[in-house]
Structure formats: C-alpha cells, structure tokens
C-alpha cells in the first residue's frame, strides 16, 4: 500500500487532500561511510514513554526515547485510527527498529546507535515542527550523532 491507487478510496482521497509544506533549497549533508555513522531514529508514530504526556490533536512537539527504554514502556498515542496498530502491538521493531539497528551495529554495518531517539506525531502540520526539529538536530550533534533514520507509521 504505497500509492494512492493501492489504498481504499477514502484514505487515498484524504491523503491527496493534505496540504504539504513548501520546501525550498533542500540541503544535502555528506558524511562518513555507513560503517562509521552514529544513527538515531526519528519516528512520527506518536511514541512516548509510559507516563509521558500523550500526543493530542495539533501536537507539533516531540518526546525523547532513551535507547535503553524498556520495550514495555514505549506507548503510541498517535491520534489517527486509520492505520494498523496490531503490528506494533506484536513487535515494537516494526515501527521503532532500535533492536535491529543495534544488531547492525554489533555486526559493524553501522558505527553505532544513538543514546536517544525522538518521536513526533505525524498527523499534525509539519511546518510548526521546524523549531522542534532543530532542537532535535542540536541534541543529536551534542551526543555525536550524524545520521537520522526517519520512520513513519
């Protein structure tokens, strides 16, 4: 289900109507080989730790997920009901693949896994997320992370 033509009609119409932000002059950052990169996950699944404030309609901020957070303490409070959550219920890695990244790091395929990951809630307009995203970028740089893997839901 990746193109409108493969989706139920109502969902395709909804997605096609969503306003998309105008992005001008996209940057392209080069970096070290993959085997030397420090990778953080940035999710838009509305993830947070048990006890964190849940995401609500219009939320443009983010939650921090320390990489050693127990799997039982990662919850999803995305407001949409129009996507599957049962995969996430069965296996956290289908949405938040930190365990897989750690396996890749152990094999030397990537340099390492960040100490912190981040989640936004993708149902909101992304334009007001910009300042929060910049805070995330600064936090990544402060801990030596050079690469973000962005995972939707």
């Amino acid at each position: 289900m990746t193109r409108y033509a493969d989706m139920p009609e109502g969902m395709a119409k909804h997605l096609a109507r969503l306003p998309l932000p105008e992005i001008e002059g996209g940057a392209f950052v080069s970096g070290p080989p993959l085997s030397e990169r420090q990778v953080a996950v940035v999710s838009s699944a509305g993830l947070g730790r048990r006890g964190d404030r849940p995401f609500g309609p219009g939320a443009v901020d983010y939650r921090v997920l320390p990489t050693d957070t127990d799997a039982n303490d990662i919850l999803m409070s995305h407001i949409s009901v129009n996507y599957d959550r049962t995969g996430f219920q069965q296996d956290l890695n289908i949405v938040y693949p930190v365990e897989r990244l750690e396996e890749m790091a152990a094999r030397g395929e990537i340099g390492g896994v960040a100490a912190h990951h981040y989640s936004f809630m993708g149902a909101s307009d992304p334009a007001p997320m910009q300042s929060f995203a910049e805070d995330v970028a600064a936090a990544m740089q402060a801990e030596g992370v050079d690469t973000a893997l962005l995972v939707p839901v």
Partner: protein
Amino acid sequence: MCALAHYLERKGIATVVIALVHEHAEAIASPRTLSVPFELGRPLGAPDNPEFQLRVLRAALALLDRPAGPVLEEFPDPAPEPADYDGWACPISLPQPGTGADGSHERLVADEIARLRPWWDLAKERRGRTTVGASGYDIEEAARIVCRYADGGKPDAPGPERKLSRSLKLACDDLMAFYTEAATAQPGGVGSQDLSDWFWGETAAGRAFLALRERAAGEQDKGMQLVGNLLVLPRSQAHRAMA
C-alpha cells in the same frame, strides 16, 4: 516525516526517510527516501520477522552512501504474508454483542474484559510488553468511562487534568489495544483487517464505541466533535456508523 528530514538536514544531520505514502515522498523530495509498499502502520513490513526488517533497514541506510540527492528509491518486495493464511476467527468465544437488559453497554463490556483478560495476560507475558496504558486508566476504568458516556451519562474521568474528549479518546485507544492484544495472544498471523472487523462487528466494546462516536459527533464542543467524527471510527469501518 519527509518535511522533518529537510529541517534536520539543514542543521547538519544526514537523513534517510522510510516512506509509506509514495506520492507524498515524491512531492516533498527529501534528500534520501526509500518508498516501501507496506500497509500504513507497518513501515518495516512485517512483525516478528527480523530478517525482513533488516532487509528494509539495509536498503534504506544504503542510500546514505549516495554522493548527491534527492534520491527516491522503491523497496521491491511486498511484506510477506503469514504462512497458509486463509482468514481468522477469534479464539475466545464471546457472546453475540447486543445491549444489556437495561439497554446499556457497561455490564457487557465488563464481561468481555473479564473473558479476554487471561489471554491479554498471556500476550503480555509472551511479548514482554503491552501497548495499553497511554490513558493512564486501568482497563476496567477505561471501559467504564467509555460506556457511561456511550450510554448517555456524564462520566467523571478521574486522573490527569484534561478535557473529557481527550480522556474518552485515550480510553478508547487503550480498550482497542487490550482487545486486539488479547485476540492475538496465540501464535499465528492475523490480518489487521480481520482484527478490525472482529472488534467493530463482533464485540460489545465495538458497539459501545459506535454509540460513543454518534453522541460525541452531535456535541457542541469542538473536541468532542473531532472524537465523534474522526478519532474513534476508522474509515475502513465507516459503514457501521449508526444512521
């Protein structure tokens, strides 16, 4: 998601996006994007399939070695289906849903929760986790709040300071997660649409949700209208909405 990549990249972080909606990825043209042909909600493709998940990750991260962008590649393979899958029936036999003798949902949903509880416990033990809990209520309390509102009452939603519309939405999400975690406690793959059809078509909780959404959609409060119109009933089950 794709816009976030631009914001991060401008600040010096290299990004790679996994994209579930191809047309959005094309329109926003993030620096590096892997478009995947999977169901919404499953960006790594298949639960409990580490090999397949690793293939997706490797395909995405390999884009970081490209010298220039934007790069938009498509992952070639669909998510693997559960072996020999030809439909699913809930292993827990629940009574046909209706409303109670007094026309209310509360007792029926409480009974369902009691019957599902051992399977939810088993699922939690097997997976080492549960996704129930964002509302902050225990599951019986979540059910009470949802059913009292669905039955026309005014539930007092204790706990964190927030509007009733928020409490109802989060309680609904927790109840739904409790039901589907319990229903999938036993091994064997289940299609997400089958689970959704079961919840909405065959459980008293599904009936209570339909009554809740109808009442909420008719309220003056904008937050309630949002819950009633958009945040409880999925589009794929819209045909069940009461007239």
